[in-house]
């Protein structure tokens, strides 16, 4: 009988690397068979543990949701695409319609502002406004004698 299988050879066997001579050896050697059985036993315990734990979590399928969800998202996707396309077309059209209206409004606003400016603008302060009736600052006739008298005084 050949020497016992090494730790690496046992691992290789468990991983599915199974040359004929190792199979023969395992048939003959109780010690190596026992070593392999212990490893396989531990792996089986692990499998049972995972399966038990998974079953305990209680996850169950929802077929109706599964089969409907893709369809819903499919339609939703197309609806979003359609909405985006509509927005791309509608926004420039809406803007071009607004343009003349906005120009008219701007003109109206400008006229209104001028009227307001005219209405509230004053050439003299409000307290001096009564004096403007007595003195005409723009009149050349009215201002000439004063100017002459001012010139004569010194």
């Amino acid at each position, binding site marked *: 009988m050949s020497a016992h299988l090494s730790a690496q050879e046992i691992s290789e066997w468990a991983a599915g690397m199974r040359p004929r001579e190792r199979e023969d050896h395992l048939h003959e050697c109780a010690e190596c068979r026992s070593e392999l059985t212990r490893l396989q036993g531990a792996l089986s315990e692990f499998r049972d543990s995972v399966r038990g734990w998974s079953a305990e*979590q209680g996850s169950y399928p929802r*077929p109706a949701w599964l089969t409907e969800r893709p369809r819903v998202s499919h339609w939703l996707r197309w609806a979003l695409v359609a909405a985006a396309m509509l927005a791309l077309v509608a926004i420039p059209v809406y803007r071009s319609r607004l343009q003349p209206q906005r120009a008219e409004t701007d003109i109206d606003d400008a006229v209104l502002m001028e009227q307001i400016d005219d209405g509230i603008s004053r050439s003299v302060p409000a307290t001096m406004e009564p004096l403007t009736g007595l003195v005409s600052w723009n009149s050349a006739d009215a201002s000439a004698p004063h100017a002459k008298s001012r010139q004569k005084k010194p």
Partner: protein
Amino acid sequence: MEPVAATGFLTAALDRSAAELENFDAVVRLHWPTVFRFALASLRDRDAAETVTQDCFVKAWRNRAGFRGHAAVKTWIMHIAVNTVRDHLRNRRLRFWKRTTAQALDLHAAGERVADERPSTEAHLLRTERVRAIWEASAVLSEKQRTAFLLRFVEDMDLLDIAAAMGLKEGTVKVHLFRAVQSVRERLGGIA
């Protein structure tokens, strides 16, 4: 006449596999526990496993037209599951803190899950210790090693099916499995 018979057999097998998908609800009911278990063992997070399982079947539903029956339905579903888990893990790397917390909780809970046939206390403790050691060892395996390990030793899939599910060659799967088993044996030490 033999090749014709063989071709006929193959065609019938392909048709059978493809026909299995006709009743998709039955496929979901049949394979849901396997996918969920694989996702749970890979991610160690119940909510994430549930999400991944749902995503897996949604992807399967969307791509069912592309299934030609060249593999068993289970292998095809597991291929989608492996990819979905992998994508989830990649996204989760950004949230490493959550992973750490989930693993710490789940290792404890999972280690306690040992088939209880009421053996002696000592035997029960040894078994719990062994299972916990394998859980811990599998937690630090590389993604591919862990996937191959879980598919082989939890789902009992054969090497060719694992290769198909992982999109690898059979020889590569053996190498990943060998490394995984080596790590597990090292962790088990004298308790196996």
